[in-house]
C-alpha cells in the first residue's frame, strides 16, 4: 500500500489524545524513550503499529499500573518553512487543485479535549492553515446525547495566467476595446479565410502581446454543519447545513465554423471562428437537511427533508466579438459565408434552481433472520430563470418573424421556462438468512424522472456565430421544439449466497434492468444480467475471489428517421416524401447511440490475497469488461477494459516497512463509419456519400494504456529516534487513435473523407517524496522533506496552442484556419518541481 504520509499518521482525535493522556509528557519513567504501544501517536510511521502490536501482546498481561496525571487538553502542531523551484512554460498543473506553500506554513493544528471522567469529547483539526486548500474540522459530542460536527474546506482550481482582450467591465459583461474591434474589422470584414492579409495576423498578435493578463481559476469553499440529538435510545433528531461557494473564472469557448468558397473538388475551405472567454464564476449552493430516526427492537424508520437552492450571481455573460465593431449577418445560401459577425452575444449561465426532497426509509426485522426494508423518495427541482433574447445581433432578421426584432424578448414564445423536474426513487428489499449458511435477497429499485417543463415551438434559433437565423425550413420543416426528456429506470434483483463449505462460498445473482424513455430513439430497453461469484479460502492466509457477469440488453424498437438512399450517388437524401417522427431527435437516422442500443456485456474479475507470512502479503486482481453494441451498425461497435493490479507489502521487523503497487489498464473502443450502411457496400469498391447532408466518415479505434507504479519505504532506528519515509510514484498513459476509411472516396470529398491518424497522446507524472525526522525528545520532532515532481504531456489538442495559433495548428501537414479565433491558451504543459521543507512537530 502507499506509505501513509507523515500526516496520515497524525490523528489528533480521541484515541490519540487518550494515548497522550496515558503517556503524556512527564508521566513516562526516566529512560523510557519509546511511546506507549497501542497509542495512536500522531508522529509515527505505519511500521510502529506492527511494533505496537508486538509490544501489546508481550506486555498485555504484565504491564504494571501507572498513574497518569490528568491532562485533558492536547495539542499537536506542525509548522515550518517551505520553498520550491518550478520549471516549465505552463506549469499550472503543479497547483491545479492545491497550494504548495512558499515560506512559512502551518501544516497542522490539532486541539482535542479528552477527560476520562467526562462524557464529552471535543476536537478540532486544521490542515494547511491559511492556504488555498485549507481544511478545518471540529466535533463536540456528549456520548449518548448529542453530536455537533463542523467543517470548512477549500479547494482551488487553477487553469492558467493568460492574456485576453476580453475585460470584465461589469457583472457578467466582457468587453473589448472599440479601437481594437474597429481595426480588426477594418482589416478582414467579410473576406474568406484565403484572402485575409498576413498583416492582419501581426495586428492581432500585437494586441495580444500588450493585452492584460487574467488569472484563470476559481476556488470552491465548502462549509458544513451537522447536529444530531438523541433524546432517547429510540429517537434521533438531526439537522444539517451545507454551503458551497464557487468564485473566480474559467475558460469557455464560443465560436462556430464556416466553409468558405466551395472549391472545384467540393471540399471547400474550412475555418474556425470565435473567442475563448474568461467567464466569471460566482455561484452558491445552500442545502438544509432535517430528519429524524425512530427505532424499536425490530424496526426502524427514518424521515428526511432536504432543501437546496442554487443561486448564480452571473446568470448570463454578455461578451463582445473582438473582430467586429458593427453587426452583420452571414450571406446565403444557408449562412455558409460570413459567419460570426455579431458585435455582442450572450451565454446563458446555469439557472437558479430550487430543489426539495422528502425521503422515508424503513426496515423491519422478522423472525428467521429476515429483514425487509424500503426507501421512498420524492423530489422536485424548479427553475424559472428569465430567457435571454434570441440574439443581440441587430442585423439579424427572419422571414418567419416579419417586422419583429430578434433582439427583443417579445420575439420569444415565452419569457421563461418555468421548468420542473419531479423525481421519484424507490427501493424495496427483502433479505433472509432463515436457512443456515444461505442468504437470499430480493430487491426492486426504480427511478422515475419526470420532466414536467413545458415545451415551446420556437420560430427559429440563432446559429453560426449569431449570424444566421435558422428556422424549421432548415430542419426539413420539423418544428423546433425543446424536448422535456423523461425516463423510468427499473431494476429487479434476486441473489442467493451459499456458504457451501467453510472455505467456499458461491453467489448467484439475476438482475433485470429496464429503461423507458421519452424523446429518445429507443423508448424501451430491457437487460437481463446473470452473475456468478466464488469466494475460496484454500488455506489459511489465502483468499481467492472470482466473478463473472453476462448482460444482454435488447431494444424493443429503435426509431429512426428513414432518409432515402440513392444508389446512383451512394448517399442518403431527404425527399418531400420523407416523414419525420417529431418525438425523435433530429439526428441522423441510422447511428446507434451506445447508451440505449442493444448490447452484450461481459464483465469478469479475479482477485487473490496471499499472506505469505506474518511479514509478507501479496494481492493481485484482474478485470475484463467488454461491451459489444448493435453489431454492424454505424456508431460505437465495442468498448473494452482490461486491468491488472498487484500489490506487495513487507514488514520485515519492527523498524521497516516496504510496499509496492503496480497497475496496468488498457481501454479499447471502435466505431464503424457510415459507409458500412450502404446497401451492398464492399470495402475498396463502393464509394460513399456526398458531402452533405450525410457525409463520408471513418472507421476509428482507440487503444489507451495506463501504467502506474508505486513504491514506498518506512525505516526507523532503534527507539525510533530517527525515521525515514520515502515513496516514488510514476503514472504513464498513452492513447493511440487509428482511423481508416475502407471505402473509396468520392470525387467531391477527398479532403474530408481521407482518414488521418491522430498523434499519440501521452501523459506522464512522477512523484518522489522523502522525509527524515529526528525526535529531540518525546513530543518534539524536527525534520526535512523533499519532493521531486516531473510532469510531461504530449497532446495534439494542445501542443500547438497559443493565444493566437494562426499558422501553428496543422493537421496532416496542412494548416487549420483559425485566423479569426482568439484563445486563452489555458492549458498545462510540462514542468519539473523541486520542493524542500523543514518542519517542527510539537505535541502536548
Amino acid at each position, binding site marked *: 500500500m502507499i506509505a*501513509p504520509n507523515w500526516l*496520515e499518521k497524525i490523528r489528533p*482525535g*480521541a*484515541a490519540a489524545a*487518550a494515548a497522550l493522556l496515558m503517556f503524556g509528557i512527564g508521566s513516562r519513567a526516566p529512560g523510557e524513550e519509546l511511546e506507549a504501544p*497501542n497509542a495512536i501517536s500522531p508522529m509515527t510511521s505505519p511500521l510502529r503499529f506492527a511494533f505496537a502490536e508486538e509490544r*501489546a501482546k508481550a506486555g*498485555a498481561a504484565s*504491564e504494571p499500573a501507572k498513574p497518569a496525571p490528568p491532562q485533558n487538553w492536547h495539542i499537536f502542531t506542525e509548522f515550518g518553512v517551505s520553498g520550491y523551484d518550478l520549471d516549465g512554460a505552463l506549469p499550472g498543473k503543479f497547483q491545479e487543485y492545491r497550494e504548495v506553500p512558499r515560506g512559512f506554513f502551518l501544516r497542522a493544528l490539532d486541539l482535542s479535549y479528552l477527560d476520562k471522567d467526562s462524557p464529552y469529547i471535543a*476536537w478540532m483539526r486544521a*490542515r494547511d492553515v491559511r492556504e488555498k*486548500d485549507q*481544511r478545518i474540522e471540529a466535533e463536540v459530542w456528549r*456520548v449518548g446525547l448529542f453530536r455537533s460536527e463542523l467543517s470548512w474546506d477549500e479547494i482551488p482550481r487553477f487553469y492558467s495566467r493568460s492574456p485576453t482582450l476580453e475585460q470584465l467591465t461589469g457583472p457578467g459583461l466582457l468587453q473589448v476595446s472599440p479601437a481594437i474591434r474597429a481595426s480588426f474589422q477594418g482589416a478582414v470584414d467579410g473576406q474568406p479565410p484565403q484572402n485575409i492579409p498576413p498583416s492582419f495576423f501581426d495586428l492581432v498578435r500585437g494586441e495580444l502581446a500588450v493585452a492584460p493578463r487574467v488569472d484563470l481559476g476559481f476556488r470552491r469553499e*465548502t462549509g458544513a454543519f451537522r447536529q444530531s440529538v438523541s433524546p432517547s*435510545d429510540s429517537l*434521533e433528531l438531526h439537522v444539517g447545513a451545507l454551503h458551497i461557494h464557487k468564485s473566480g473564472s474559467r475558460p469557455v*469557448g464560443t465560436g462556430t*465554423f464556416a466553409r468558405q468558397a466551395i472549391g472545384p473538388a467540393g471540399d471547400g475551405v474550412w475555418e*474556425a471562428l*470565435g473567442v475563448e472567454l474568461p467567464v466569471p464564476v460566482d455561484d452558491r449552493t445552500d442545502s438544509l437537511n432535517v430528519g429524524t430516526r425512530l*427505532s424499536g427492537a425490530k424496526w426502524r424508520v*427514518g424521515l428526511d427533508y432536504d432543501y*437546496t437552492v442554487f443561486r*448564480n450571481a452571473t446568470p448570463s455573460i454578455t461578451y463582445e466579438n473582438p473582430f467586429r465593431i458593427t453587426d452583420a449577418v452571414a450571406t446565403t445560401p444557408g449562412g455558409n459565408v460570413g459567419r460570426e459577425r455579431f458585435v455582442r452575444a450572450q451565454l446563458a449561465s446555469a439557472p437558479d*434552481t430550487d*430543489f426539495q426532497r422528502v425521503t422515508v426509509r424503513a*426496515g423491519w426485522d422478522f423472525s428467521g433472520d429476515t429483514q425487509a426494508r424500503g426507501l421512498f423518495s420524492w423530489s422536485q*427541482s424548479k*427553475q424559472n*430563470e428569465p*430567457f435571454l433574447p434570441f440574439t443581440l445581433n441587430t442585423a439579424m432578421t427572419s422571414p418567419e418573424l416579419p417586422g419583429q426584432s430578434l433582439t427583443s424578448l417579445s420575439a420569444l414564445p415565452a419569457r421563461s421556462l418555468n*421548468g420542473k*423536474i419531479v423525481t421519484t426513487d424507490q427501493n424495496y*428489499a427483502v433479505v433472509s438468512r432463515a436457512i443456515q449458511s444461505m442468504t437470499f435477497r430480493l430487491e426492486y429499485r426504480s427511478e422515475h424522472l419526470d420532466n414536467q417543463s413545458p415545451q415551446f415551438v*420556437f420560430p427559429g434559433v440563432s446559429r453560426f456565430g449569431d449570424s444566421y437565423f435558422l428556422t424549421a425550413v432548415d430542419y426539413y420543416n420539423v418544428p423546433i421544439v*425543446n424536448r*422535456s*426528456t423523461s425516463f423510468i429506470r427499473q*431494476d429487479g434483483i434476486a441473489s442467493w449466497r451459499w456458504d457451501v463449505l467453510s472455505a467456499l*462460498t458461491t453467489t448467484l445473482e439475476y438482475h433485470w434492468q429496464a429503461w423507458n424513455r421519452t*424523446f429518445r430513439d429507443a423508448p424501451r430497453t430491457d437487460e437481463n444480467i446473470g452473475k456468478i461469484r466464488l*469466494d475460496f479460502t484454500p488455506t489459511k492466509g489465502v483468499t481467492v*475471489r472470482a466473478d463473472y457477469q453476462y448482460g444482454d440488453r435488447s431494444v424493443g424498437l429503435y426509431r429512426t428517421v428513414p432518409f432515402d438512399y440513392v444508389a446512383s450517388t451512394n448517399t442518403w437524401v431527404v425527399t418531400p416524401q420523407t416523414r419525420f417522427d417529431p418525438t425523435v431527435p433530429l439526428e441522423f437516422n441510422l447511428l446507434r447511440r451506445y*447508451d440505449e442500443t442493444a448490447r452484450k456485456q461481459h464483465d469478469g474479475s479475479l482477485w487473490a490475497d496471499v499472506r505469505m507470512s506474518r511479514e509478507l502479503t501479496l494481492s493481485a486482481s484482474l478485470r475484463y469488461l467488454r461491451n459489444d453494441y448493435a453489431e454492424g451498425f*454505424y456508431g460505437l461497435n465495442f468498448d473494452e477494459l482490461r486491468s491488472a493490479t498487484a500489490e506487495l507489502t513487507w514488514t520485515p521487523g519492527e523498524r521497516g516497512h516496504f510496499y509496492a503497487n503496480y497497475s496496468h489498464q488498457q*481501454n479499447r473502443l471502435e466505431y464503424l*463509419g457510415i459507409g458500412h450502411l450502404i446497401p451492398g457496400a464492399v470495402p475498396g469498391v463502393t464509394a460513399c456519400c456526398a458531402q452533405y447532408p*450525410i457525409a*463520408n*466518415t471513418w472507421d476509428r479505434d482507440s487503444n*489507451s494504456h495506463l501504467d502506474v507504479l508505486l513504491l514506498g519505504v518506512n525505516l526507523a532506528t532503534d527507539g525510533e529516534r530517527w525515521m525515514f519515509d520515502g515513496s516514488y510514484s510514476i503514472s504513464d498513459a498513452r*492513447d493511440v487513435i487509428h482511423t481508416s476509411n475502407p471505402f473509396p472516396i468520392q470525387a467531391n470529398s477527398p*479532403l474530408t473523407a481521407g482518414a*488521418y491518424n491522430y498523434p499519440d497522446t501521452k501523459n506522464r507524472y512522477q512523484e518522489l517524496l522523502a522525509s527524515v525526522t529526528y525526535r529531540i525528545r518525546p513530543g518534539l520532532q524536527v525534520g526535512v522533506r523533499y519532493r521531486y515532481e516531473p510532469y510531461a504531456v504530449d497532446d495534439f*489538442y494542445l501542443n500547438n496552442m497559443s493565444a493566437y495559433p494562426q499558422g501553428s495548428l496543422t493537421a496532416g*501537414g*496542412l494548416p487549420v484556419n483559425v485566423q479569426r479565433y482568439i*484563445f486563452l491558451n489555458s492549458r498545462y504543459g510540462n514542468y519539473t518541481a523541486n520542493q524542500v521543507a523543514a518542519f517542527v512537530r510539537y505535541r502536548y
Partner: protein
Amino acid sequence: MFRRLSDANFHAPWPFAIALMALSVLATAQTPPSAPEPTPTRRPRTAEQIVAGKCLQCHRKVVEEFVNEVHGKSAHFMAGGSEATCETCHGPGEKHNDTTLAKDILNPPRMAARDVDKMCLACHAKEHRRIAWTASEHDRKGMSCVSCHSTHHAKSPSKELIAFSENELCATCHTDLRKAYYQRSTHLFRTENHDEKIACGACHNPHGSETPKMIAAVSTNDLCYTCHAELRGPYLWEHAPVRENCQNCHIPHGSNNPMLLKTRLHMLCQQCHMQMLNRHQTVAGFDVFTFNQGCANCHNQVHGSNHPSGRTLTH
C-alpha cells in the same frame, strides 16, 4: 431495549459492584466494637474501574485507552442497556477471569462475520447509514464491522478505522483505485502532503445503500448534484444522456483524459453524433475542433442550455 446478543449473555458490572460493596460492608462489620475506629476512607472508583471492572487487572493499558473512547464513555456515562461495556462485545468474562485463556472470551476479529454484525448492529442499526447493511455488497463478501473498524486498535480515531484514513482503508482491498490519484484528471484530490480532500465516504456508503455501487444518494446524478448543483436543471434544451447518468460520459475516480471523460472529447461526442463529423472537418480529414476544448470550443453548454438559441448546446 434489546442490546445484547442474547439475554443470557447480558452481564453488567452492577452485580459485581454490589457484591464488592457487600463484602466491603461485611469487612467493615468485622471490626471489634470495643475501640472507636477511624472511619475508613472510601476511595472513589476510577473511570477504569467503573467501565472495566475485573478486566482492568490484566488489560490495564487497553482499558485506560478505552475510557477515553466513545464506547468506553458509553459504558461510563450511559445506562439502561445503551452502555457498551467490555462484556457487551467480548461476552461474559467469568470463565476467562478464572482461566485467563483467550479461548474463554470472545474476540470479535475472530468471530463469524454475522455474529459480529449482530453485536454491533444491536446498537448501531438505527443509524440510517447502516439500514441497508444486511446483504449489502460488503456483507455478501463476508466482511463484518471489524473488517474496517476497531475499538481498541484504531488508527483513525474519528471513525475508528483500522487504517490512517478512509481512502487508505478502502484501497486495502480496492487496490486498483490507487492509480486514480495519478491519472491526468482525478476526483480524488489531495494536498501535496497527501491529505485527502475527497474521501471515499463522500460518495459511497460502505455500509450499504439502496443505490448501485453503494452510492450515498438515491441515484448517481443526485449524488453529483450535491456539489455540482448548477447541473441539476431543468434546462430549456436538455441533453438526455446527461440527465440519465453522469457516468455516460465521465469516470468518477480518475481518467487519462481531461475533465474525467471516458475518452477524448471529440471521440466521446462522436459516439452519438458521428454524422456531424464531416461538417466540422477541415483539410486532410482533421477535425476542425480537435484542438483546445474540442467540440466544446463551440458547444460549451454540453450539460444543457437555457438560452433560446441554445438548441445545439451552444450559447
